[in-house]
């Protein structure tokens, strides 16, 4: 249960908002829930709703509205590649094709080992460093085929070692940082 496991962190996040406006914390709580469950599963939605005292259907509608929440299971490492115009002018479309081919999946599919899925996403605000991708919110920029191979090797190795930092960005910003 998130409520118990992250009691201190949740309390700190809720404290950022006025007494009767705690629903403001919903997006952050969902980031934590998704880190824990991999995607916004029924359980994840219900736990967030329970913490905030709101109906799970509200969490469902938020899940559908914002692109960083996944409605279906994804790989442990989600490679979100931007191929908006500015990135596409620097080869992002070809980069996505290459990435899909290397991993042997189509967009939105999960590799058989459960490690990766590839998504194409809208602008990530790193157009000067294209092609680029974010993996579980960590940016990887100035990419090419060779660097992509290295990145995949890196994550495979981490997974083999039992990666407990797969969601290091959420950990660093929402779990470990309090004030």
């Amino acid at each position, binding site marked *: 249960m998130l409520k118990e496991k992250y009691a201190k962190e949740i309390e700190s996040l809720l404290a950022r908002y006025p007494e009767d406006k705690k629903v403001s914390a919903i997006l952050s709580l969902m980031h934590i829930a998704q880190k824990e469950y991999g995607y916004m599963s029924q359980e994840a939605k219900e736990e967030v709703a329970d913490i905030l005292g709101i109906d799970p259907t509200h969490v469902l509608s938020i899940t559908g*509205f*914002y692109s960083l929440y996944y409605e279906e299971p994804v790989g442990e490492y989600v490679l979100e590649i931007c191929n908006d*115009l*500015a990135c596409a*002018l620097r080869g992002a479309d070809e980069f996505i094709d290459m990435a899909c081919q290397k991993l042997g999946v189509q967009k939105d599919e999960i590799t058989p080992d459960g490690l990766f899925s590839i998504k194409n996403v*809208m602008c990530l605000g790193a*157009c000067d460093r294209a092609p680029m991708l974010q993996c579980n919110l960590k940016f990887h920029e100035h990419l090419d085929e060779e660097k992509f191979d290295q990145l995949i090797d890196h994550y495979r190795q981490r997974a083999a070692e039992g990666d407990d930092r797969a969601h290091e960005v*959420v950990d660093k910003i929402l779990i470990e940082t309090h004030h």
Partner: protein
Amino acid sequence: MTHIILRHHDVENIHELSVYQANGGYEGLKKAFSLGPKAVIDEVKKAVVRGRGGAGFPAGLKWGFIPGGDMQKYIVINTDESETGTFKDREILEKNPHQVIEGALIAAYAVGATKIYNYWRGEYMDAAYACEKAIKDCYASGLLGENILGSGFSCDFYNHFGAGAYICGEETALLNSLMGDLGQPWSKPPFPAQEGLYGKPTVVNNVETLANIAPILVNGADWYVGLGTDQSNGIKVVCLSGHVNRPGNYEIEMGKVTYHQLIYGEEYGQGMRDDKGFKALLPSGGSGPVVTADALDADVSFEGLNPFGSMMGSASIIVMDEDTDMVWATEKMTHFFKHESCGKCTPCREGTFWLEKLLIKINKGRGTQEDIQKLERVATQIQGKCLCALGEFATSPVLSTIKHFMDEYKAKVNTAVPVPAD
């Protein structure tokens, strides 16, 4: 040139509080405390700091709309930087976070706000680490929290993370999102200055706008007015991307640098990639009309592109070379707007869907002359009918490329070879 916003180019480790303070940091806040709230607003009004998120609305006026009285008031920083081609606010907050915090504190002091929320797009969570650290250091040094620097003024600062939605850059959508709801705009009035966050008076300012404030208080409004042009005071951070040799963020004095210089200048883009010829540029991400070579001698300022039917906006310049297929580029931009439409207004939700559908058809070689007219018709039917500017923006790549590159559209629909359906 010495940077005013992108100061990390001149001062190493300026993201650290001690370094920032050793280089004049938080002197603007001290100046604000000595002037008093009303004089601070007057100074910022006099400087005419037009909003750097793209809309260009003067920050001082915005602050002046906040009513007096003791009720709770808020400052909200708009870090939902999501326009295609825009990547300046991330760099500013990552490399020079204290200048934004200081600007927001001055704004809070001026309008009597005691809470600042910094709304980040969720994708920038990693970039927020420097800002989180900066906030902690500020609390530890008496620059945030109770009785800041003994002034009697107290203020809290919180980072808040979104979760991927371009529309949340629109201020009322952002506020709805911050209140835990879908990020959809509301019909104004009420304006945020009257009823914003939690129904309380709220100022929403862009990151870059706030980064201008401390230097203005330190150097005076007259100094700032002396920079730029009559209608565009000060400096601007320009995001340069696409087919240039050296894409990146560049700080310029408005009115003093042309688009041509930005692309070809040694200190900026260093020319077109692979020495290709220039074809067109989008001056404001996807939301400003495309311009062609005749506009390259225009200067970068709020008014510079007026004669060419376009605008500076957020100065997110996407450069395209002679080989770029403009109908393809239009489909890309249209797909973005369709994806990011919040769905509230029918003309935008349905219109962007049809625009994309028509563009895909034309790009696949299955379009007709009539489809080009249909594109124009759908786009003009979206205009003026939506609550926020997204609908309007979505029409601009379509209409401006039809205006400048009709020959490319025609070449695609006049294909003699019938293409089989999928």
